């Protein structure tokens, strides 16, 4: 490997210089406040001007949307619970079979018994209308993008940005335009839930096989016939998958939007319970959301799977289809369910049986139990928290130079210790550079520097240089320029310090997620049993709205970075597991056979054949993990973490739209830098390995 060491040495030298210079040159240590441009102020002013002009229009939209929402709410709260439960169970069964029926039945009975019926019906009506709106808008844009190349090329980066910008940042302009109230929640959900539908519509239409398309034309389809009779039905499985994703997105957003537009719905219930620190009730109401989300996921996936089965899907699809009722039979069954439900409800009124309130004592018992657990295992819980805090989290945040004290680590950071640290680091870096590659050596050295001064202590100039260099190394000039410009934007916006706190939190969460996720992924790839278990866990973790993760973590560990970190990991570990397992499982059998024939042991096969091959896929998983972590960051800021997430939240609270939007954009930019670099790296590895 005849790599020119000069650029790498230069990079290392620049970082060291910056670290040494920070105490001498004040502008090196912290980005000077004079150099900040009042971007958030300008943004705020621009938005205010726009709102002034367009407000009447948006207010009319909001008024128009209020009608169907009210109507549906009244309808759903009027329908007696037994009728609704039986009908939903029937639909669930028709869509996805017995397990879905049991889940739906359990969910609704639980809601009824736990006394969240009205709130849940309000939420459901909101979600339904949001989904409908998002599906229609998404389908429209998807078709438009499919037909028009210009629209497609504009829409693609916009969708990218929409999926990277934290959900909270959406709320701010929507709040301004539409005012407070349930309709804002509705619109925010619809806006957030539309992109998956756009993407799936576009993808579905693009993937219609050319033979089918041409067959339609030859059969003499007029343009309208071709679209509705050939293209759309052929794209249907993908469209239904889009509906599923849209449903889940709308659901996740409903809870977040309760923060601004809370009314008597389940999101509001959870939020106020958390705020009152009533954990028993927050668990019970959080469970409602989790169960509802899982039921809806099952049902919509079942619908998608069903059409899959009808169009050449797997054997599982066929099994689903076996029990289906014909349209007429289903109608009869539905009428039967309604009548049965009505009779039940009449009987219950007559006999004055009310299921509500049976779980009254449960909330208190949970609280008591929790208090018992936290006090009994206080030593363990606090020990866990403290050790992670001092040995992992804080070094990343503020650096070894400030964490290592006799109190926490048992020894002080005396000059000999410092010298030893740097010597060891230099030796490790040199060894890596000598035996692996210059890149590996540099990476070790840089990580060592970061650990020493901390993410927040690293001079901004050094960070900019490092990130840009890394971007150049992985993706060439386009990525490097994008990274540089984005960082300059964050600097000019005055968000650097906050951004670095976010980066530290994200980096720690992502690192831990990767370690845990890759380990679990390897386990899952090695054993089918483990894989099945992991799939269940992953599905559940991914279905439950992010918000709900906060509840259990908060219960045990109180507010603070550590809680935020755990909540992020719970959510962000999923893609790391999934991609690792998938990457390992798709290593060609021929390669493994060849390795076995050469006499490799199992661990040699894993480390020297499978992992290098799966590496690009794992990189993509890491990319997803980072994006997931970014999304969760804002929600975690509710439990007292600092950083950009907190800025957005403050912007929302103080009604300072400029600040919220700029902070949101900064977070999105960080996510996109990581995304571009990792995707380029993965593509490089794939090309090198010849997997394309």
């Amino acid at each position, binding site marked *: 490997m005849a790599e020119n060491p000069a650029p790498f040495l230069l990079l290392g030298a620049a970082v060291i210089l910056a670290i040494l210079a920070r105490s001498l040159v004040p502008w090196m240590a912290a980005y000077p406040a004079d150099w900040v441009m009042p971007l958030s102020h300008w943004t705020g002013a621009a938005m205010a001007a726009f709102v002034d002009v367009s407000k009447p229009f948006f207010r009319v939209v909001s008024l128009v949307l209020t009608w169907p929402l009210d109507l549906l709410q009244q309808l759903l709260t009027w329908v007696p619970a037994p009728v609704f439960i039986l009908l939903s169970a029937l639909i669930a069964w028709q869509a996805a079979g017995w397990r879905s029926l049991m889940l739906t039945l359990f969910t609704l009975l639980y809601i009824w018994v736990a006394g969240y019926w009205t709130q849940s019906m309000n939420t459901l009506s909101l979600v339904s209308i949001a989904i409908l709106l998002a599906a229609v808008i998404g389908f429209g844009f998807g078709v438009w993008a499919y037909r028009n190349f210009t629209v497609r090329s504009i829409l693609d980066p916009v969708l990218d940005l929409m999926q990277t910008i934290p959900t909270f940042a959406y709320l701010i302009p929507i709040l301004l335009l539409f005012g407070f109230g349930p309709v804002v929640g509705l619109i925010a959900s619809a806006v957030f839930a539309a992109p998956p539908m756009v993407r799936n519509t576009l993808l579905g239409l693009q993937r219609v*096989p050319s033979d089918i398309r041409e067959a339609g*034309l030859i059969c003499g389809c007029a343009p309208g016939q071709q679209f509705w009779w050939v293209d759309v039905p052929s794209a249907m499985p993908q469209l239904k998958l889009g509906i599923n994703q849209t449903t889940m997105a709308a659901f996740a957003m409903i809870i977040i939007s309760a923060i601004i537009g809370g009314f008597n719905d389940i999101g509001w219930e959870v939020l106020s319970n958390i705020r009152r620190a009533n954990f028993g009730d927050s668990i019970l109401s959080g469970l409602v959301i989790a169960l509802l989300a899982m039921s809806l996921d099952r049902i919509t996936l079942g619908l998608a799977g069903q059409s899959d089965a009808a169009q050449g899907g797997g054997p599982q699809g066929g099994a689903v289809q076996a029990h289906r009722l014909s349209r007429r039979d289903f109608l009869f069954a539905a009428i039967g369910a309604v009548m049965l439900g009505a009779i039940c409800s009449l009987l219950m009124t007559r006999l004055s049986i009310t299921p509500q309130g049976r779980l009254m004592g449960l909330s208190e018992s949970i609280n008591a139990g929790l208090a018992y657990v936290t006090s009994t295992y206080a030593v363990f819980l606090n020990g866990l928290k403290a050790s992670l805090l001092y040995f992992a989290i804080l070094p990343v945040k503020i650096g070894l130079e400030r964490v290592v004290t006799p109190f926490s680590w048992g020894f002080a950071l005396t000059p000999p210790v410092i010298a030893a640290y740097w010597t060891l680091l230099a030796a490790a870096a040199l060894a890596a550079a000598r035996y692996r590659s210059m890149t590996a050596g540099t990476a070790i050295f840089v990580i060592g520097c970061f650990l020493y001064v901390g993410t927040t202590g690293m001079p901004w100039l050094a960070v900019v240089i490092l990130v840009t260099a890394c971007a150049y190394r992985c993706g060439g000039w386009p990525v490097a320029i994008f990274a540089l410009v984005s960082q300059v934007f964050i600097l000019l916006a005055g968000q650097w310090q906050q951004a670095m706190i976010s980066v530290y939190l994200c980096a720690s969460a992502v690192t831990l997620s990767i370690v845990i996720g890759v380990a679990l992924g390897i386990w899952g790839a090695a054993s089918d049993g483990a894989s099945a278990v992991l799939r269940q866990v992953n599905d559940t973790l991914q279905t439950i709205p992010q918000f709900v993760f906060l509840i259990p973590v908060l219960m045990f560990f109180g507010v603070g970075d550590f809680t935020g970190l755990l909540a992020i990991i719970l959510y962000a570990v999923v893609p790391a597991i999934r991609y690792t397992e998938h990457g390992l499982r798709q290593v060609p059998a021929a390669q493994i056979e060849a390795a076995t024939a050469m006499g490799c042991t199992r661990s040699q096969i894993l480390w020297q054949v499978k992992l290098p091959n799966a590496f690009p896929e794992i990189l993509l998983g890491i990319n997803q993990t980072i994006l997931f972590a970014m999304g969760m960051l804002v929600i975690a800021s509710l439990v007292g973490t600092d950083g950009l997430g907190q800025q957005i939240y403050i912007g929302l609270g103080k009604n300072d739209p400029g600040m919220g939007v700029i902070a949101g954009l900064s977070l999105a930019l960080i996510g996109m830098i990581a995304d571009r670099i990792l995707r380029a790296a993965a593509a490089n590895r794939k090309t090198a390995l010849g997997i394309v």
Partner: protein
Amino acid sequence: MIKLACRNLWKVYGRRPGVYFDTAGYRIDPPALARRLRDERHIPAAADVSFEVEEGEIFIIMGLSGSGKSTVIRCLSRLIDATAGEILLDGQDLLAASPKELIQIRRHRIGMVFQNFGLLPHLTVRENVAFPLKTQGVALAKRHARADEMIRLVGLDGREDAYPRQLSGGQQQRVGIARSLAVQPELWFLDEPFSALDPLIRRQLQDEFLRLQRQLRKTVVFVTHDVLEAVRLAHRIAIMKDGFIVQVGTPQEIVLNPADDYVAQFVADVPIARVQYAADILEPLPSPGDHPNARPVVAASANLEQVMESLGNDFSAATVADTDGRPVGIVTLNRILQILGRRGGTPSGRGQLPGGHMKVVS
């Protein structure tokens, strides 16, 4: 009678393909134009393609992938628009048809079969076959009755309510064939219809195709990359290379008299016995006192493979009968072996074959 004619057809992909065909000058030197197009980063997928298809004829376009054969059949049905040239259906220029007229032509006069079947996954077999009638607005009962008739014709009765995914590849293509015939089209286009199938099923469907064609007498344009399939099915074959047609002729002409080395290599796999017929190597009946029926009797149109089959191990000659069953001559094993032996030698000797066969006829 000429049903379909294709004249000087060009399909060029690239940035500005139209400018090369502004004037009729493009007809002067097609190979030079194709070279210039390639130099200027355009791709002539079909170049100066001309042929005529007789009513009731099976015309096969053959070539390797990328030779332009699929492009040509798609231009014929205007699934893609040709850059220049004429396509005449009963003398009417298809390229000049308006979108509305085109839809009418497709609805009533053209049927097409696709390599990957192109069945609509959400429709049953019956609904798929009835689909072209549905686009015309034929009433449900009527179009389903017609569809059932077509399904019987291709031997799929009993599977009317199945979905495409529940059928095997061969069965799916039978549905494709039934659908293409549902509107009783005059033109029947088949784009590599059997290429996605196993060899055994392919053979079955080729027989099925011949049976249907004998019954229906459509004007057929058939695209394939399989030489043996082409020789087996075609009345005439056009061989394409790099967008140009390099030779058009009957299977016998193409195999025995290839226009250039490319065609020669292409047809090298075809057993000579399959394109030489008993009539080609006829020898006079031995003497008046001969008993023609003491030998196996073969038709004059039988190819040498079939003749050898009937000779078996016991005979060294067969009597050739005309369509009325009257003996007109004999074919001898010696003569057959002589013919077959010539091909087996040096490839360069192949061109001399026709001379030998002329001699026999005289």
